[in-house]
């Protein structure tokens, strides 16, 4: 039986606050260990069924710089695009292994406009 990758120590937003602000830097962290070797790590932020949004929006990033590693720390900072819309989203973190196995973890993330962010 092939071993699936593992994903641990996930942090969405600074200090794992589960918050993203449109137009601002977003902090993402996770420790990944492959069953065989890592092929890709990708993250998708998408709208949830049952929630309502003023417009359609989603984003996805594929990181292939971890290819060939047995384990790694994925630490990325990226901007939440200006065209993102507020709401409660689900973040899907997907690790593909070179042995063909995949593991995904889904977590909630709240996206705010800077103006409406409750400081």
């Amino acid at each position: 039986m092939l071993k699936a990758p593992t994903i641990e120590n996930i942090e969405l937003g600074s200090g794992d606050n589960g918050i993203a602000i449109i137009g601002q830097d977003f902090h993402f962290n996770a420790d990944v260990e492959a069953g065989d070797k890592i092929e890709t790590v990708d993250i998708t932020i998408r709208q949830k069924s049952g929630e309502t949004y003023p417009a359609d929006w989603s984003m996805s990033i594929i990181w292939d710089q971890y290819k060939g590693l047995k384990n790694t720390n994925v630490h990325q900072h990226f901007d939440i695009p200006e065209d993102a819309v507020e709401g409660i989203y689900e973040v899907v973190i997907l690790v593909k292994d070179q042995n063909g196995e995949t593991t995904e973890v889904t977590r909630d993330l709240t996206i705010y406009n800077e103006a409406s962010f409750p400081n």
Partner: protein
Amino acid sequence: MKNYFRLALIAVTLGFYACEGNEDEIDTEAPIINMAFDEAFPQQCEVLQRGETYTIEALFSDNFELGSYSLDIHHNFDHHTHSTDVAECERQPTKEAVNPWLIIEGHEIPSGQKSHRISLPLSVPTNVDTGDYHLMIKLTDKEGWQTIKGIWMIIR
């Protein structure tokens, strides 16, 4: 002729066992970054001055064979966290980055080494933002196991 075959059989058998021996040993251990010796640099919460040149000193080791390493210096003006071991130092004020110091560079380690000492010059540019920074040293062995050491540095 008979002796020739016997010799060939022994050679093939030896070859088979030699290969089998290697394949039986699966590397399950990540490499080690040692910065716990007198000359190791930088240490947690090290203060570096702009315009000065320092030397990164670290000792790498692995149970089988080392592969490569990379250095990543990025600002921590937002005081973000890593799940790798970045210490908590006295925080400089949170601020926006204007011209942050950024280094991401990869280095190969000559093949066949189980132990490798690095002494790499590190010049802090005169025009970069002062404040809190992270230095991440990422060491990977030939099998692909990676160890990351995170160091909090302060640039003045």
